[in-house]
């Protein structure tokens, strides 16, 4: 889109260098960044879900999951509870940071990291004992594809939380919004990962 300006005589001045960055105030840069990221992630998960439903509804004949495979619903349910709990702890951490309660912030972040790591450990343990691999047909491929994709996101979230934890224990983060952006952004990402897992869990293990 083109724009132009006409300067009056008294105020005419030569402008050197590139034009000033034009930024819309409808949405700030940080929000736009996280929004675009989440939208791209939703599309990525959407592609995997599309594959899952194609395999299950169109390509599959007979029961689901195909015999003799069985999914450990109870273990996955407990794991879901663990991951959902971590959303509460990261929220507690941010509330602590906002109120200047450093201990609550540190405890919240540590608990979130531990719960996330436990989730990942249980999922890997599930992979070891589940009795089929990604090479065992389309079902195995899509199961490992979807849960593995989510696991990779949990891993990335754990990396973010690791840095947030280090910073929290080093005395970083303050009560002002700009001073606890590291927890805010990690929290947004972590909640997104949690929501995606709830949907993955219900889709794969329950429905």
């Amino acid at each position, binding site marked *: *889109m083109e724009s132009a300006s*006409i*300067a009056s005589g*008294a*105020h005419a001045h030569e402008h050197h260098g590139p034009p000033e960055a034009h930024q819309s105030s409808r949405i700030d840069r940080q*929000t736009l960044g996280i929004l675009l990221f989440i939208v791209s992630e939703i599309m990525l998960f959407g592609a995997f879900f599309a594959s899952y439903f194609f395999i299950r509804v169109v390509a599959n004949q007979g029961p689901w999951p195909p015999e003799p495979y069985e999914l450990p619903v109870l273990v996955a349910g407990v794991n879901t509870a663990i991951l959902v709990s971590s*959303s509460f702890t990261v*929220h507690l951490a941010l509330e602590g940071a906002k109120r200047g309660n450093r201990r609550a912030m540190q405890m919240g972040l540590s608990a979130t990291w531990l719960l996330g790591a436990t989730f990942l450990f249980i999922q890997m343990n599930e992979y070891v004992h589940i009795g089929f691999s990604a090479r065992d047909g389309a079902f195995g491929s899509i199961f490992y594809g979807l849960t593995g994709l989510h696991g990779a996101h949990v891993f990335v979230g754990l990396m973010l939380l690791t840095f947030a934890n280090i910073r929290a224990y080093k005395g970083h983060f303050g009560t002002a919004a700009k001073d606890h952006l590291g927890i805010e952004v990690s929290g947004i990402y972590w909640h997104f990962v949690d*929501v995606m897992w709830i949907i993955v869990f219900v889709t794969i293990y*329950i429905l």
Partner: protein
Amino acid sequence: MGVKITESQMFRVVVIVGIAMVPVILLAAIVDPIAGAILFGIELGAGIGYLVQRVRTAAPGPAEVAPVPDDGTHRLLVVANETVGGRSLFAELERRLEGEPKSEILVLVPPLAGSAAEHWSSDIDDAIPEARERLEASVAAMREKGLHVTGRLGDHHDPNQAIEDALKVFPADEVVISTHPPERSRWLESGVIERARAELPQPVTHVVVDLEGETAETR
């Protein structure tokens, strides 16, 4: 004004999605997985519908504008498109700046686009040179009358956004928006004046310019 995504909002989403999945799980376990899938689909559709509705009906917040300096200069932001050369607008500006020892005017002309789609598909390419011509003529005419004036083409399909962007660099004391009469004005139809009054901290004056009437008077 502005869209925000916060951790608290995302936390609420986790809680809502978690609660929404309980009946899905129960239905799938007790009745049938298909019934659970249907409920899941209904909830998903309702959730997306709610979000869309929420975004569409979100109340405008205050605009982020440059602070007005106390330097004795009265600054006026004039927003107009086709009516930028209207005599009633000139008369209103002269009346407003009468007695002001020092004044500055920024004339903002956001080229007309009917919608975001029209804007992004560059269908308003013809409107831009036309808007520039009007702007140049108008600025020249105002300078002839001794007004201290600069001009700028807006680059957003949304006049309110163009106003806000201009106010970030031009700390106006007041805003004057010029439109056609109600029966011909797309800006009035889309509530540009009401939104400007709700969003801007500056007083907003609406000037109606009847170009057809002015032409008839000249004849």
